[in-house]
């Protein structure tokens, strides 16, 4: 480890972090203004329930999974996985 060199967050990390923040915003305002209603039913679920319990969590999981997979490859290339 070079104790003098500042290591800044990589582009991949920042992009996935930004996507997560946007999805969380959609979970709250202003997204809530759009999904905060009962109709229409989607897969028998009220619209708001579908968005908050299925759709947005799935999008958040997908973003997080892409982040993890991308970083795994990066850590493997850099040989920094265990130090």
């Amino acid at each position, binding site marked *: *480890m070079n104790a003098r060199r500042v290591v800044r967050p990589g582009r991949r990390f920042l992009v996935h972090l930004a996507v997560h923040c946007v999805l969380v915003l959609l979970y*709250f305002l202003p997204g809530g203004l759009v999904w905060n209603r009962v109709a229409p039913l989607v897969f028998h679920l009220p619209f708001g329930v579908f968005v908050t*319990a299925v759709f947005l969590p799935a999008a958040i999981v997908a973003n997080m999974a892409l982040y993890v997979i991308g970083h795994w490859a990066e850590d493997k290339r850099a040989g920094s996985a265990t130090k």
Partner: protein
Amino acid sequence: MPAIPPGYGPSIVVLAVYFGGVMFVGLYAWRKFPQSDPENYILGGRAIGWLVAMFTLMATQYSALTVLGFPGTMYRDGLSGYVAIGGMYIGFAALYWMAFAARTWKLGRAFGHMTPGETFSHFYGSAWVGYVLGGMLILAVVPYIQVQILGLGFLFQVATGGMIDEPTGAVLVYFLIIVYVLLGGMRAVALTDTLQGVLLVAGLVGGALVVVNVAGGIPAAFSRVIAARPEWLTIPGPGGRSPWPFIISFAIPVGLGWTMHPHMWIRMHIPRTVNYIRLWPLVVVASFPIVMGAAFLSGVAGQVLRPGVTDRQATDSMMISLILDNFQPVVAGLVAAAGIAAMMSSVSSQIHGVGASVSRDFLHKLFPEHDPRRGVLYTRLSVLVVGGIGLYLSLTQPGFLTKLGAFSAAWGAQAAPPAIAALVGWRWATKWGAIAGPLGGTAMLLAIGLTTQDHRLLGLYAGLWGLAVNLALFAIVSAATRPARPDDSIVRAYRAIGW
């Protein structure tokens, strides 16, 4: 010996097999893995594999609240309760871990940190920062341990059909926890968490599915709630109790505070590679819809089968009482056993984490030891004392501490500003700011939380007010005490650690 109540034989057998399995796994960890130094006892030698690391995280974070608290919150508040809890877990806790879990892991490897207090002391160059913040985090978790033990006793009584009463059940289960935590340390806690994690997911999801089935199945249950109480399925919820500003002001401090607790922080150091710690936020967001979806479904079933209940205790135990009313006792016993698993996994992790903090943040600094075996002895003694205090408090049930338990996570969040400043390596943050901010934030949190009925001021949750005061004090005091900034070489080392 009291007679087994009719119909409860199978659930008592399941409980006995489960306790035997937990004890076997705990003893296996004790015999199989070395416990000769604090790093092995507290962190499992920083060599835990991905599967066990993920299960210990999941089982630790789903606790008494998951089985007894959250289904009740969702019954009372509907979708707004779900969104508040969702925002806290998959929004802010996941965001924090995504940003800082790998960095915390790397700092631990580079500098030997185990507890949050050690990171604070090291970065700010002051043992006092570690004493104050480490002590604050310990105080934030102890009342929560007490609340969990109360839940353990209740579920034990349900699972045995009243054959064993609440206090006796709590003591029995607690004794079991103390034995395997004392002997096997982190390895025992993590391995038993894996067993408990499987049981808790199966029990909670299974329990929710059977009660929603009694309510006519998922589509019919939702149709009936839409017809009877459509406001339950939108925000701000019944009676307009949870408007957006409150939900957001709740999710931010509670989500952040969760991540600061010693037992959660310690877990960031246990995986063998940094790849495993990057999985952490993924596990949180992936398990949430399953576990909390189950809690939400039991709230829906409760609204259909037993609408209009307002008593807090009755709503908290809604899922269990619905099962008791509609199925053979064995079903309730199995779900209660899953609840016991959820609580045991959290309590064991909390006692171990808080014990480790007492040992590393206080005893190790006040009475430096050179023999690693003495370090393990300190930690085991701390675990025993913390465990004893938790049990004593739960049996005597002081109301004031139960009240404090409600603020456990928001209180933990008061450590977040100095923690983030340290992890990022901000040179402007000083030790005096790191002490003043969290103390001021805690005072604000408790002032609002303990003096208002709904823990709100101007519609915002007390935790966010605490965080606002904390941030302001942290910035102002840091600016006013520039000579006390962290050492330049430390700042550079932290900035070079990588993401």
